[in-house]
């Protein structure tokens, strides 16, 4: 399969030549962590896998719906879960900022200094829980946040550039896993703003790991024409950015091309996508027979 360069041309070695070597191993590790796991459990499996890859103590995934607060989907340990929930309660903290800015928010030292001053109440609670540094990465395709991937460590210290890149790859894999959950958010009136995740009939189906790898590749195709193509496909299918990118990814994967190449076809209007006529209750099919050439 052709490989994408992150934010670079497919032919150049990008500003990250050395990273791409490690990249294949990381995507393989993430795909292996997700393979054979029931869809609803993939986010937790990925959170646990990242503990072996990064110098962090715990990780959690929170999801958000438009106009709703965040809700915890999974956490690798109780502290990770409590850190996330403390931020929803307080309405302050890195995950809040990450959602608003659609950008990673990195607090390497909650015991004092700028991070402590920025979120004084959260920082104090986090330190009491045993966290010294927290890192929040927005889930999604980098344009809208559909939740956050939150990491904490029990010692003060920043993530290196390489570690941050790796964390972003885990974030991409998690975005795909969340996309696969196909959950419906429902506000539960009894708990005010609690999000309820509707159970779905096929949430226990095992996942194919290759989807994770090809999604991470697709998510790294950070080019103008990819974003433009995602916008066009959103309009063609009346869907959100994540689903539109997933259709581009699936098409590229099926044809053995890069997402960038497929995006150029869409932008040049040589390729159009059509809505899949699949009833909502069916699991999402990876259709590869788009018409329009």
């Amino acid at each position, binding site marked *: 399969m052709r490989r994408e360069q992150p934010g670079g041309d497919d032919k150049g070695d990008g500003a990250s030549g050395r990273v791409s070597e490690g990249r294949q191993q990381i995507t393989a590790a993430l795909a292996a962590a997700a393979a054979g796991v029931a869809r609803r459990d993939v986010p937790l499996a990925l959170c646990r896998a990242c503990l072996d890859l990064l110098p962090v103590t715990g990780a959690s995934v929170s999801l958000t719906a438009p106009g709703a607060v965040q809700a915890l989907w999974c956490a690798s340990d109780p502290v990770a879960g409590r850190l996330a929930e403390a931020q929803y309660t307080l309405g302050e903290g890195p995950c809040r900022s990450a959602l608003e800015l659609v950008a990673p928010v990195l607090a390497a030292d909650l015991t004092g200094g700028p991070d402590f001053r920025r979120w004084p109440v959260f920082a104090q609670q986090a330190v009491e829980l045993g966290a010294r540094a927290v890192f929040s990465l927005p889930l999604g395709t980098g344009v809208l946040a559909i939740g956050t991937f939150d990491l904490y460590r029990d010692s003060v210290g920043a993530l290196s*550039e390489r570690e941050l890149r790796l964390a972003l790859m885990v974030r991409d894999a998690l975005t795909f896993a969340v996309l696969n959950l196909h959950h419906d958010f429902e506000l539960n009136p009894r708990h005010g703003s609690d999000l309820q995740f509707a159970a779905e009939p096929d949430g226990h189906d095992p996942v194919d790991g290759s989807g994770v790898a090809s999604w991470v590749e697709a998510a790294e195709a950070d080019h103008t024409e990819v974003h433009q193509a995602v916008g*066009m496909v959103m309009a063609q299918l009346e869907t959100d950015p994540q689903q539109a990118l997933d259709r581009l990814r699936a098409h590229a994967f099926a044809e053995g091309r890069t997402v960038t190449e497929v995006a150029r076809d869409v932008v040049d209007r040589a390729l159009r996508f059509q809505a899949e006529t699949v009833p909502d209750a069916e699991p999402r099919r990876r259709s590869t027979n788009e018409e329009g050439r």
Partner: protein
Amino acid sequence: MNREQQLAEAFVGLTDTLAEDFDPVVLLDRLARHCVEIVGAHDVGIMMATARGGLRTMAVSGESAALVEMFRLQSGQGPCLDCYRTGRPVDVADLGGIADRWPELVPLAVRAGYRAAHALPLRAGDRTIGAVNLLLAAPGGLPAADLRLAQALADVAALALIHYRADQAGTGDILTRVQSALAGKAAVEMATGMLAERGGLDLTRALHALQSYCRANGLRLTDTAQALVRRDLDANSVLSLLN
């Protein structure tokens, strides 16, 4: 307007981060325009580093296919990448003489009519967050004084971009600001694609439609783009301004 007045206005415009309509995407477009109109470059492109270690085009002074393609190539080779990696300016007085240095970029640049190029670092504190590429139609390059001016414009734009505050100049904070600007740029591109598809327009006209809508309603470009992508704003509202 003489050059001093132009400059004074440019600096005020680039540093006015408290203005209601401050938008990183627009700020960098403005910087590119100043580099053409005041500094005297023929064309300009601005690239910023992503958290993944790549370079991403944030602003280009023109819309010609060759120019856009040149900046696509520059994420993998060229003066911007060298400048970003070293944090130092790159000056190419004669593009015709260095074909082997960037084998794909140089022939394309020469075919498009460029003869010289400069890349200046986009600096935030002691970090390089990207590069400003000045392209010239004549060989020889710009005088040192003009390059200093371009660097000064780039420096204030970069400071504005990261909302420089002594208390918050942590490296993590710079990364967050830069990534947030990149997310805004991506939202504008996505919204442009949506409008192009919905209105049957080419991408250039779709972007102009978005910009006109923002101007007519006093809205920030990035906010409006994000509202379109979130579907809080209907594409038809934006397209209805077109006749």
